[in-house]
């Protein structure tokens, strides 16, 4: 049996060991032929901008790019749902030869007349980068005619990885920020960045902040609105979730509008509480009662959550998990969350982590944990088997790898339809882990059948 690790990738895989300096290679182009789980620049920008519900999202490219991203995410809107349609200029052969600018202009005009969006985002794809359509010029022209912002998103697929797409998205959003009226925004106000309202999660978070006495100006981009983005610079603070997606926007807003930012994660007990306390601390001079209200809120929520977790934990104690997600920041929260369930994380990796991220992961995981950057099915399946984990946390592409090996799975990616953020989300997460890990089906899978039979024999003997 040949080893499954590509020689070119050995320095992107590490096992933690105490007392050793941790180093890992990352932020490289994916290896040709390695079946990376990563997508592309276009994907990165689409993920970030897509939840803006009253904007028109037009993919300038062949039909596939739009079809594959049509309504696959669980980003909910409390109002308009224009974002759930995936418009495409459907480039054909003759457009590639003669250029697609006319087609793009016609599509924009038709769609803007038909749907009357507040703004339009035009995503460029690989092919547009190659044939050299002048997106900027077309967008400018249509914007002038229609009187709405028409914003090009420079997201040619081959120009890097998902991370480059995040940057393109942030640059696109930055063209809106600062163009709206900020009157009426109270001093204790924030923007929520980097949350996409999957399964309505942003509504949970927003409610927490509002209970504390903080007004949320813009949710970027979950349940997002163009007008909110325009006035986002009126907020006192940006709270940024996730390791990469909207960090660039926070930085740009800081340098251009002086808006400070702090980072947050809404997953798990510690990180969720910290996200609230950090904001309370930021406003404590203006509102001395806020810390108290926040503590009360956290206590109230934990009083409901902890007894439930205790029951679940009894069944999960000592089990192990593997994590492979898009951004590494989420992985930190997951490692801590599993600890609350009495579980150990034996494998953890991400598509786009930085060296700092991986160092942090090495620091918070147990000795012997496998840490991996930009992995692929062969490696992931090997790690799962080797560590004999009970559950794998990932996205839809990772699901069949787990299931084929007789391992439970939890979808913790953009496509999830179950709210996992906040205290309520932690309970949902615990229940989902419990549901899959304790299912009787695993005892029938070929890989487990032997070991279950052995355990039963052992128990019968003793």
């Amino acid at each position, binding site marked *: 049996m040949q080893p499954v690790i590509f020689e070119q990738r050995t320095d992107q895989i590490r096992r933690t060991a105490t007392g050793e300096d941790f180093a890992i290679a990352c932020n490289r182009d994916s290896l040709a032929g390695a079946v*990376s789980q990563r997508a592309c620049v276009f994907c990165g920008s689409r993920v970030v901008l897509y939840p803006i519900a009253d904007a028109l999202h037009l993919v300038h490219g062949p039909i596939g*790019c739009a079809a*594959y991203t049509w309504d696959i995410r669980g980003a909910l809107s409390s109002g308009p749902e224009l974002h759930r349609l995936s418009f495409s200029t459907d480039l054909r*052969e003759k*457009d590639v030869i003669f250029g697609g600018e006319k087609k793009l202009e016609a599509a924009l005009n038709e769609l803007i007349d038909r749907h009357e969006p507040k703004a339009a985002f035009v995503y460029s794809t*690989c092919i547009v*980068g190659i044939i050299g359509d002048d997106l900027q010029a077309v967008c400018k022209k249509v914007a002038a005619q229609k009187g709405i912002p028409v914003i090009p998103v420079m997201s040619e697929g081959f120009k890097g990885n998902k991370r480059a797409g995040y940057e393109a998205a942030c640059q696109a959003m930055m063209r809106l920020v600062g163009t709206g009226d900020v009157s009426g925004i109270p001093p204790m106000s924030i923007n929520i960045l980097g949350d996409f309202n999957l399964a309505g999660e942003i509504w949970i978070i927003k409610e927490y902040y509002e209970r504390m006495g903080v007004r949320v100006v813009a949710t970027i981009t979950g349940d997002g609105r163009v007008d909110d983005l325009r006035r986002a610079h009126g907020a006192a603070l940006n709270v940024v979730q996730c390791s990469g997606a909207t960090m660039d926007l926070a930085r740009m807003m800081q340098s251009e509008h002086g808006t400070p930012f702090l980072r947050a994660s809404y997953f798990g007990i510690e990180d969720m509480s910290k996200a609230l306390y950090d904001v309370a601390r930021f406003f404590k001079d203006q509102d001395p009662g806020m810390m108290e209200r926040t503590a009360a809120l956290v206590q109230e929520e934990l009083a409901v959550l902890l007894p439930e977790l205790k029951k679940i934990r009894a069944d999960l104690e000592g089990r192990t998990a593997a994590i492979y997600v898009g951004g590494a920041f989420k992985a930190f929260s997951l490692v801590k969350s599993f600890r609350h369930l009495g579980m150990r994380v034996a494998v953890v990796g991400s598509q786009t982590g930085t060296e700092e991220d991986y160092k942090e992961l090495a620091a918070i995981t147990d000795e012997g944990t496998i840490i991996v950057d930009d992995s692929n099915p062969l490696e992931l399946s090997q790690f799962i088997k080797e560590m004999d984990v009970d559950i794998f946390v990932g996205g839809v592409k990772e*699901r069949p790898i787990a299931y084929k090996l*007789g391992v439970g799975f939890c979808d913790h990616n953009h496509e999830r339809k179950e709210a996992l953020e906040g205290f309520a989300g932690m309970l949902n997460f615990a229940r989902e882990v419990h549901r899959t890990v304790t299912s009787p089906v695993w005892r029938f899978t*070929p890989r487990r059948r032997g070991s279950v039979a052995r355990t039963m024999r052992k128990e019968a003997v003793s």
Partner: protein
Amino acid sequence: MCKPLGAALAFMGIEGCVPFLHGSQGCATYMRRYVISHFREPVDIASSALGEKSAIHGGGPNLKLGLLNVMKKYGAGVIGVASTCLTETIGDDVSMLVKEFRKEFADLPLPEVVHVATPSYGGTQAEGFQAALRAVADQLAEDRRTSPQINVLPGFVSCEDIRHLKDVFEHFGLDAAILPDYSERLDAPAQADYVKISEGGLPVSRIKAMGGARASIEFGRTLDPAKTAGGLLAERFGVPLYSLGMPVGLRETDAFFAVLEELSGRAAPRRHELARGRLVDAYVDGHKYLSGKTAVIYGEEDMAVGLASFLAEIGVRPLLVASGGESGRLTRAVSEVTADILREPPEVRQGVDFYEIAARARELSPDLVIGNSKGYRVLARDLNVPLIRVGFPIHDRFGAQRVQHLGYAGAQVLFDRIVNAVIDRKQTDSDIGYGYI
């Protein structure tokens, strides 16, 4: 969807084959994600993962490195390379690059490398699927001595359909080489280990033997033999081609069985006669639930034609048959299969998107819609009518691989589902909530 996706699926039907997209990483990842949600199976599609430099200087080095990696780590016997819009436009000559690859690494045990040009802007997934099969036949089939093999080119059907076809040929005592055969590869059993290349698929030796086969059977009334594997095998090797409609429903299956009887020289085995008889019996038992009902059909052209034929014969009037495909043959094919039952053929729209289909469907207000999952929100939910999910993709229901469309058995499954959908709607909408309907 897009052309390389169809090619990747076709390549999955070859034993030991890893599909490989020559383009940027995203294409392969998106397509894997899309296919996984339908089949719920691991689908490893490799990519040459081109970056900006390759886009400028050409993707040759990455293609070769990628082929080498897939060969080494997956142990692929065949690599099916499909180009993408990116590599077609920067002008990569895949055929030449593959030749160079073979020469450069001649000392290694190289896999078969089949390549097909599938720029996404050049057609639909169905066309990519057919183009890949033609490329496979073109690059692998050899002129061999006559074999009893029958080449079966069923088109893009479900795993269950392929399994059913295997059974049917076996019952007739015919040796079928089904291309593609992803019935095992994309619907594999639970395994003890992660299998790098799922088992199953048509072996390369059988593909090579296609040139000497007794006959080819190709399903699809909108296909142009000048662009299909069946057409190529007929032209180059003189293999007689039976070009049939997709055997959906009674009459199209009858036509298929007539060919099987001719090729095997025997009458249909009793089990199929019984299945046919039961189907007609069910048609009678259920006719009143359906008679006079209307439907909108959408999806890939050949499946849509089969469904139009089937609906017409069970008394459901297809009002509109719509497809994103643009073969130019859809109108004629639909009128051919419905002519002897419907007074006038249904309206046919080709090259349309869901917005246009939905707009027309609202005017027609059908009793049900039939097609893939993509029509749920914009058609079925909006019109408040049942959606019978068939074809690809089905990612909002469970068991897509096991949806059966073909043969008497497939017609039986579809018929029962349609009748039950109508009964369910009647029951739900009823003020009384009848327990017996």
